[in-house]
């Protein structure tokens, strides 16, 4: 297969082979071309060159519909649901049961949905609107929808990035039963530990090329990372020792009505405070409130010894805070603006302005330097951020906040959807900042990351802090206990 996008070769001579009744994992760095290949297999995009065979026959897909009819279903990396339609309508779109008049039989459709959801043990009502569901519930609906096609080949593109441990385990049960029914499953993930649990075979891609394929029995973690990145990546969580100083941020009984309650903690200079919890435990909401995006309903925030009413992001920034949000696309990037515009937006304060005019040369130099430090992989500062891979977009956003020289840095899922190599790089950077005296709050759903990076770990459950653990006492078990409560 070969596929080019303007300026990028996404796939170059890629090959892949899936056996009936197996789960085949697909791995590779961000931008390696995994999703692109899958989109071709699902008829979403046509390949520039190359063919594939289904059950020994050459097929050329013309549309997603064509793929579905030939028995290929796919769960896409981005959620693909209609928010104002019900679960049942979303699952059966285009295949709604009709009554004798040719009208849609909503009753039957809801019953069919309920049956399907029961069979998969997914605890969602057939007639609730998608917009009322949590992200993880939505992901489960996507899975139910894909299963409902009863197709020979099922493609899952990072289905677990928005699921809790509990649901991941559940998903794996579903996958295993499908495998027993003789279906072929392609499974894309960045999470190494999932491989041994679910995959039969692993194929690795790099820069749009096929690198290698191996059986999971003979799986060697380092070997796969080497194949993905092209070199050894030894130290995954390079935590440097940093001098912990005075309290810079003290939060007392912070509450946002109906969302989280009585959140209290302290943060010190040079400290990395990890925040763990299940998805939906309210960690991001606390971060948003700290930064003034959703001002608190009660409680206090004390920054450098002064009580501050953080009523908007501007106030937070004035007090030396910076906030990397969890959703790059929704609240991070200006996709159709350049790297430069994306990086400089938070520093257009008086320091870089003359009478409202931007002193562009100075800022450009700073951005140039920053992207060099962060190793942003792009043709130039004027490249549109839209054309960057996810990891590089993330680096640009980190750059945006580092330019503000923050003293308190809040990072929400700094490495979500980021490949192993880039992840290590971001970790190194966080440590370095802490070493320079920046106080860091790092929200993460990946326990190894939290454990590896944090000086202390705060655990949340349903909008409340259930415990704050020291690095010495924190481990997988103790955190999970507090998180599940």
């Amino acid at each position, binding site marked *: 297969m070969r596929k080019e996008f303007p300026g990028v070769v996404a796939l170059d001579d890629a090959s892949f082979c899936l056996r009936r009744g197996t789960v085949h994992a697909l791995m590779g760095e961000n931008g390696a071309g995994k999703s692109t290949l899958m989109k071709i297999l699902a008829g979403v995009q046509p390949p520039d060159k190359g063919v594939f065979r289904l059950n020994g026959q050459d097929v050329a897909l013309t549309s*997603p*519909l064509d793929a579905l009819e030939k028995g290929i279903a796919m769960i896409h990396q981005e959620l693909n649901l209609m928010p104002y339609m019900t679960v049942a309508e979303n699952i059966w779109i285009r295949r709604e049961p009709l009554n004798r008049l040719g009208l849609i039989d909503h009753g039957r459709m809801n019953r069919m949905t309920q049956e399907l959801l029961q069979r998969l043990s997914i605890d969602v009502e057939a007639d609730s609107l998608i917009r009322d569901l949590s992200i993880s519930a939505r992901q489960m609906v996507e899975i139910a929808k894909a299963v409902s096609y009863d197709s020979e080949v099922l493609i899952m593109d990072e289905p677990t990035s928005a699921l809790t441990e509990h649901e991941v385990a559940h998903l794996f049960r579903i996958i295993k039963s499908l495998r027993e029914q003789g279906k072929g499953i392609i499974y894309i993930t960045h999470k190494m530990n999932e491989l041994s649990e679910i995959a039969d075979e692993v194929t690795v891609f790099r820069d749009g090329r096929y690198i290698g394929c191996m059986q999971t029995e003979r799986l060697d973690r380092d070997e796969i990372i080497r194949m993905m990145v092209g070199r050894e990546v030894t130290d995954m969580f390079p935590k440097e020792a940093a001098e912990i100083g005075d309290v810079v941020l003290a939060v007392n009984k912070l509450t946002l009505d109906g969302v989280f309650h009585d959140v209290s903690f302290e943060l010190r200079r040079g400290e990395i405070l990890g925040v763990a919890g299940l998805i939906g*435990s309210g960690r991001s909401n606390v971060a948003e409130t700290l930064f003034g995006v*959703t001002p608190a309903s009660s409680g206090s925030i004390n920054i450098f010894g002064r009580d501050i009413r953080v009523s908007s992001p501007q106030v937070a920034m004035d007090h030396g805070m910076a906030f990397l949000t969890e959703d790059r696309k929704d609240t991070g990037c200006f996709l159709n603006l350049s790297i430069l515009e994306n990086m400089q937006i938070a520093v257009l304060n008086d320091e870089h302005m003359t009478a409202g005019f931007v002193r562009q040369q100075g800022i450009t130099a700073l951005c140039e330097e920053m992207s060099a430090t962060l190793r942003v992989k792009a043709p130039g500062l004027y490249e549109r951020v839209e054309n960057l891979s996810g990891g590089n977009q993330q680096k640009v956003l980190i750059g945006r906040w580092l330019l503000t020289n923050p003293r308190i840095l809040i990072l929400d899922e700094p490495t979500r959807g980021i490949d192993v190599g880039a992840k290590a790089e971001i970790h190194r950077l966080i440590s370095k900042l802490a070493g320079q005296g920046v106080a860091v709050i790092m929200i993460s759903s990946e326990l190894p990351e939290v454990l590896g990076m944090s000086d202390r770990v705060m655990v949340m459950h349903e909008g409340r802090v259930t415990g704050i653990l020291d690095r010495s006492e924190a481990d997988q078990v103790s955190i999970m206990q507090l998180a599940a409560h």
Partner: protein
Amino acid sequence: MAISNTGQIGKPGGLSLAKFRLPAEARIFAVLLGVAAIFEILGWFLVGQSFLANKERLLVMILQVSVIGIIAVGVTQIIIMGGIDLSSGSVVALTAMVSASLAQTSEFGRAVFPSLTDLPMVVPLVCGLLVGLACGLLNGFVIAKTAIPPFIATLGVMVTARGVAKWYTEGEPISMLSDSYAEIGSGITPVLIFLGVAALFHIVLSYTRYGKYTYAIGANRSAARVSGINVNKHLVVVYAVAGLLSGLAGVVTSARAVSGQAGMGMMYELDAIAAAVIGGTSLNGGLGKITGTVIGVLILGVVTSGFTFLRIDAYYQEIVKGVIIVVAVVADQYRQRNRRS
């Protein structure tokens, strides 16, 4: 507005929580009742008369907005699908011209097509619908094939269709239409047509695949595509249907006026869009109901009649109409937000 949903909907672990929720139409209906009540009260104080307890007036209220209503039904679908249609008013004019030119009686010396007079009423009706359909297809094809914004595509068709309407008889109005044709626009026929169309499309949007596709495309176009929907095809069909309805509106307009004129339907598109949005259809797509649009149309009708009833000067009518459009939408949003928090 918060960047993440602060409403804490759904418990972690994937349980849904289907709260009881007042449907959007009920809220808009409350706005309609509110507006009517205001006129009723003012009526007693200022005119010494009931506003609503008057059968004739109730009929006029609907009658005068029937044409807008027919258009608004088509426009609602388009907006639900995430599009917009600025061409409706001009399509009304063009259709009115064409169908009127085929509905002339032979008594008239200077018919547009002297050989095509005294035709049965169905000929101009069908031709009018076809003209509307053609304009809708043009909209749809341009949007689907070129992927330019619907705002621009339909703006182009709006300007062009108005030009063709003027060119058709070089601006000359078309009169002396047959009685059977005039029938389409007389009495309560326009109201019946409007309500019939609204009922039909209420069913179509709620209970057919056509409807589901329309909502799906408006809510999430790429999701619709990967679910196997032929988005471009459906887009053409929906614009074509809306064109057909604009054509029907043109036929009714010319039948009501018993003449065809190139200046007909001026700015109707904006009234229709306003009615749909007042009725709760979101300009972002994916959300909206025909019942809401019908109520939105009625609000416009009530306001127009109410002003005449209270003998408010035309200037103030316009001033207040603008305010009402905004207030109705704000009120709707406000109630929506209240309910959610």
